């Protein structure tokens, strides 16, 4: 059998596909982060904890109210969004005039508290969450066995990313949002309620994190630490893509997922660091990120 770079091609194809799946998570999470940073100028360090909350809400909806995966896919992100709106109104709205650092510290503190609470209540081993019956099983693609659920993850996240992009780039609401990012005072002068828009944007951004959490629940065990393992990587993705760039966040998310996947074949020990190496290189060459605009 022909080999590519010393590996049989089916191994490489399989790893590319897996990278794409992991990239799907990076994309949704970094999309939310980029959205929040774009409008609020807040570096939302609680994003990982909100992703974890999405998974936990799905678990609790199932085990307390008997609500299954499909409704939870909508309900859990909504709930996470509501908690986000409360956080924005209570705390974040007081920080906009201050340096970025204060928002970062506040959200980092919130993340630690949220993780601590869930860890205290549920331990760290993780709770089981079954795949929905319709997505069990998988397809044999010849070069690998692709679980149906993983294919669904890619489809769902591409749809959500595309939908968000269309919303922001092609609708009137999106135009307001973009305008408010550039010049909030002027937009307010046109009679648009900018503070409400900011609140809803934060709610939407963290709801995206919650959505990723529900998608992740059947794959990884529902675990209080699941977000903290991921959030640092997602931050690197946003920095590489360019802070605040929506399309940049999505494309970089998928791209880095693939690069990470390939690293797991060629030099697995480096798979947890490769993204940071890329980040360092990108920052040296293009400090605003691949898709960012230099100010």
């Amino acid at each position, binding site marked *: 059998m022909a080999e590519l770079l010393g590996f049989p091609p089916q*191994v490489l194809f399989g790893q590319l596909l897996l990278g794409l799946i992991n990239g799907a998570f990076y994309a949704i999470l970094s999309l939310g982060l980029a959205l929040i940073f774009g409008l609020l100028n807040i570096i939302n360090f609680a994003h990982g904890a909100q992703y974890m909350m999405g998974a936990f809400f799905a678990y609790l909806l199932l085990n307390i109210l008997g609500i299954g995966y499909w409704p939870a896919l909508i309900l859990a992100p909504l709930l996470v969004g509501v908690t986000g709106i409360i956080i924005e109104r209570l705390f974040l709205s007081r920080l906009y005039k201050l340096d970025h650092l204060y928002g970062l510290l506040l959200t980092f503190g919130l993340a630690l508290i949220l993780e601590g609470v869930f860890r205290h209540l549920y*331990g*760290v*081993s993780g709770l089981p969450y079954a795949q929905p019956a319709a997505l069990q099983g998988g397809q044999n693609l010849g070069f690998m066995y692709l679980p149906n*659920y993983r294919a669904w993850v890619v489809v769902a996240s591409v749809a959500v990313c595309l939908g968000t992009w269309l919303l922001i780039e092609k609708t009137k609401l999106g135009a307001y949002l973009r305008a408010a990012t550039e010049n909030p005072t002027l937009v307010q002068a046109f009679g648009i309620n900018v503070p409400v828009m900011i609140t809803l944007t934060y709610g939407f951004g963290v709801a995206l994190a919650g959505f990723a959490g529900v998608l992740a629940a059947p794959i990884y*065990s529902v675990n209080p630490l699941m977000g903290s393992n991921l959030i640092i990587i997602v931050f690197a993705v946003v920095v590489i893509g360019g802070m605040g760039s929506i399309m940049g966040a999505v494309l970089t998310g998928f791209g880095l997922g693939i690069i990470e*996947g390939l690293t797991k*074949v060629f030099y697995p020990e480096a798979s*947890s660091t490769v993204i940071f190496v890329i980040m360092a290189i990108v920052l040296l060459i293009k400090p605003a990120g691949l898709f960012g605009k230099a100010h």
Partner: protein
Amino acid sequence: MNFRAFLGMATALSLVTGAAQALELTDGKVKIGVLTDLSGTYSDLSGRGSVEAARMAVEDFGGQIGGMPIEVVSADHQNKADISSSIARKWYDAEQVDAIFDLVTSSVGLAVQEVGRESKKIVVNNAAGSTALTGKNCSPYGVHYTYDTYALAVGTGSAVVQQGGDSWFFVTADYAFGHDLENTTSTVVKQAGGEVKGAVRHPFPNSDFSSFLLQAQASGAKVIGLANAGSDTINAIKQAREFGIVQGGQSLAGLLLFISDIHSLGLDTAQGLLLTTGFYWDRTDESREWAQRFAQRMGGTMPTMAHAGVYSSVMHYLKAIEAAGTDNSDKVMEQMRATPINDFFAENGVIREDGRMVHDMYLAQVKTPEESQGPWDYYNILRTIPGEEAYRPLSEECPLVKKAS
């Protein structure tokens, strides 16, 4: 003062000095430190349960030795060697801690064992697995109590090869413990006539195993050995099911599985797994009785072998202080080595000169959901592995052994 009162006082005084002569404690109390993972990947298999187990041992001992109190302190080492050794140093040097227990994560266990050697204070490793603790890093003040990677490899590795699993691929956590477990298991597999087709090292901790599992699948090995622990193992097993690895005819061998891992996986996913353990709560009347008391204090959670090991070793340590009449580390260690351990955890357990506590291990298979009678009824014990077989023979790799022979 009349003569009677004088006599009474003299008697009382002599009693007090007599007691003090019988027991010499450097600072008027015994202080036990439980240094563990209170917040990370390993906090369910050790963590708060280990602290609680140590407290139970102190309470069951009576809370005091010769009128002097026994205290338990605990701290979170976050699975980091540097944090653990600075806490250990502070405990030994400034806070009069006499002995440190638990020490989950091998890099932590090894680091604290070195601090204990320098400070001449006792270190009991319960939840760390590396055989280096009783090999080249052995210490006159170190005890490795509950299990080690050799025992796991001998138990699970040889059982799997005997069942026909004669070609292996390892998915290994990239740190001291994982490497050690992979190496010892490879040796056991090869000795039993099996073949090792390869290994992949994953970062610790890690959540997505699909890539590593696919490499394992492509290797064509009959058995995928998981040389990792805690939530790494849980995620790897879950994802192996997802990718149809088990349905494809390959089987999984979880080389270190705690009962907390099985509880998290659920029997549907975990059924049929073979594992080696130093303790199972539902084995004897004594173990059931102790485990029920533990579960009452822990909100219904049954103890892992790490928890049981902490209780048993703290009890053994306190008894040794009482028998030796001092908390001097050398004398207490001598006493601990001289006394066999007989309790719900170990039968005729012996601490060797290299620090290894040799006791029987158990080869278990996870029950099917139909077999299980209820929560925490998870294991069928297939075989008792006698201590001499389960643990590595005394090796001259440990300098203490060389001196003795």
